[in-house]
């Protein structure tokens, strides 16, 4: 296959795909970079010329910048912790032979199929509503005052909603990893005198480390850009304004495209910092 001829033919055939991918990525990136250096206010005079580093300075010096970074990290971190912890638990449960295994597995995966907007609305109106929500009823049943979830513990509520959506993903990946564990290893550990918890700690968890790494990386990438869940629940109020949401507000609510674009560039930098950071910590799990 690897003749000169077939290689150039392969290049020729891959070229359109590569071209489309490049354009798809480079054009928006280029435009974001371009606008981030412009003073562009669509409702207040349009493109008002070159702005230098003004947008960048204004974006980070704004009083809402650091809080937005903080809420972004809290949401991402919280969801990661919850989904990985419960994902491992659920995966180990689902790995046990039981009646109706197939149906239970489909049910567990189901939340992943629900659109973010829909699931956030369902949570907001059916569970977290302080008068009619299921949780309010539950609280009242035990004689407690219902929690006004989205304004009293807004970050936690959003973490809860997003975790519910992403738990199936974590569970699914971790379940396949658990299923690939050689049962001889567990039996050997059993013969070596390791009780259940130690078998989990010394055998199962190290075996899962690679899958956990993958879950961590993929989820981080997607969670940094969550938007719909915030938009339909708190609308960015009560300290739930993430970096993504802040950019949205700058562009659409303040009608300042230049400022928003500068925020977008910061978001790219933040995502890359987090990615490098994660790769450093967990990347060594991916080789071998």
């Amino acid at each position, binding site marked *: 296959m690897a003749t000169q001829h077939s290689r150039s033919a392969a290049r020729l055939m891959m070229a359109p795909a590569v071209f489309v991918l490049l354009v798809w990525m480079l054009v928006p990136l280029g435009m974001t970079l371009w606008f981030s250096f412009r003073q562009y206010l669509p409702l207040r005079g349009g493109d008002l010329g070159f702005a230098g580093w003004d947008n960048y300075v204004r974006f980070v010096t704004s009083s809402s910048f650091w809080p937005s970074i903080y809420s972004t990290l809290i949401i991402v971190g919280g969801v990661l912790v919850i989904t990985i912890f419960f994902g491992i638990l659920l995966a180990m449960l689902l790995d046990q032979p039981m009646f109706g295994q197939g149906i239970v597995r489909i049910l567990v995966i189901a939340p992943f199929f629900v659109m973010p907007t829909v699931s956030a609305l369902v949570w907001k109106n059916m569970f977290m509503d302080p008068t009619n929500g299921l949780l309010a009823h539950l609280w009242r049943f035990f004689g407690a005052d219902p929690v006004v979830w989205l304004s009293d513990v807004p970050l936690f509520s959003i973490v809860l909603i997003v975790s519910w959506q992403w738990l199936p993903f974590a569970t699914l990946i971790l379940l396949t990893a658990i299923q690939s564990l050689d049962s001889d290893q567990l*039996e050997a*550990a*059993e*013969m070596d*005198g*390791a009780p259940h918890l130690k078998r989990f700690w010394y055998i199962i968890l190290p075996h899962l480390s690679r899958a956990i790494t993958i879950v961590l990386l993929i989820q981080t990438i997607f969670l940094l850009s969550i938007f719909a869940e915030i938009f339909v629940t708190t609308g960015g109020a009560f300290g739930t304004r993430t970096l993504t949401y802040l950019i949205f507000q700058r562009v659409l609510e303040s009608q300042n495209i230049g400022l928003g674009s500068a925020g977008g560039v910061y978001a790219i930098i933040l995502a890359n910092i987090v990615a490098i950071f994660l790769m450093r910590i967990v990347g060594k799990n991916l080789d071998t």
Partner: protein
Amino acid sequence: MGRITLEKVQKKFGETEVIPPLDLTIEDGEFVVFVGPSGCGKSTLLRLIAGLEDVSSGEIRIDGQPATDLPPAKRGLAMVFQSYALYPHMTVRKNIAFPMKMAGMDQAEQDRRIKKAADALNLTDYLDRRPGQLSGGQRQRVAIGRAIVREPAAFLFDEPLSNLDAALRVGMRLEISELHSRLETTMIYVTHDQVEAMTMADKIVVLRAGNIEQVGSPLELYREPRNVFVAGFIGSPKMNLMSGPAAQAHGAHTIGIRPEHLDVVESGGTFSGKVGVSEHLGSDTFFHVHVDAMEEPMTVRAGGEVGLRHGDMIHLEPQADKIHRFDEKGLRIA
């Protein structure tokens, strides 16, 4: 000490009886081999002794103590798995140390035992590698190392050599035999390879469909197989088994003659036939002889450099005192 007694041990998976009630005693320090064709229940029997499977009924005793309901770790047995079952994320040192760590042994004693095991098994240079970086034979030795540091009452081997290539297998066979004579610990070894059984065992247990067909030393089994199954299973190449007129002449339903007990004679002889395939091993030659009125070709052992060719007619005479006779039920006629 490692005297293991099985009393009426039975194993059922649901309705299927894998091992019908069975009695067996394994003396302290013995090298016992469970041998049988695949699916005969030999691995299941080993796992019952290990405690990885629960017995359906019956009793297992280790050194006289009832062990039937003890968890595997409490039985004082160590097992070497067919897949080695090494922990891939741990170094060789940590793999070997694992059972001691679980037992909460102090570090100095752990190091001493690791060193001793590594010396004995030629693993000293590999202690800091991971199993993935080792060859099959080295992994096998790590698995054995992990077993010996526990100083168990008995070792259980579940087809430990079946993943190795032929040359390594012979080497490891010797090493395990050597280890046994050095440690003088009870070893139970499961294999489907009768050569391994013959070369290593003090006592062979031949199993078929969960039943013990015969228990005895390798030579006992070779000289006096109790039935047709054992006769056909033990010995390489296989014993020639024949029924019909040839057997009736000896007053039996079936007779068996080992290839090495058939002499090639100039003329006459009990059997005569055409030489088919011949396997030259250098020291020996095995001929497949197509005898008239017999479906299966007979196997004959001859010297290494016998000048017989494909299609030659030869005459065979069995050594009179080496003919095994069996009745209709396949049992040996004394």
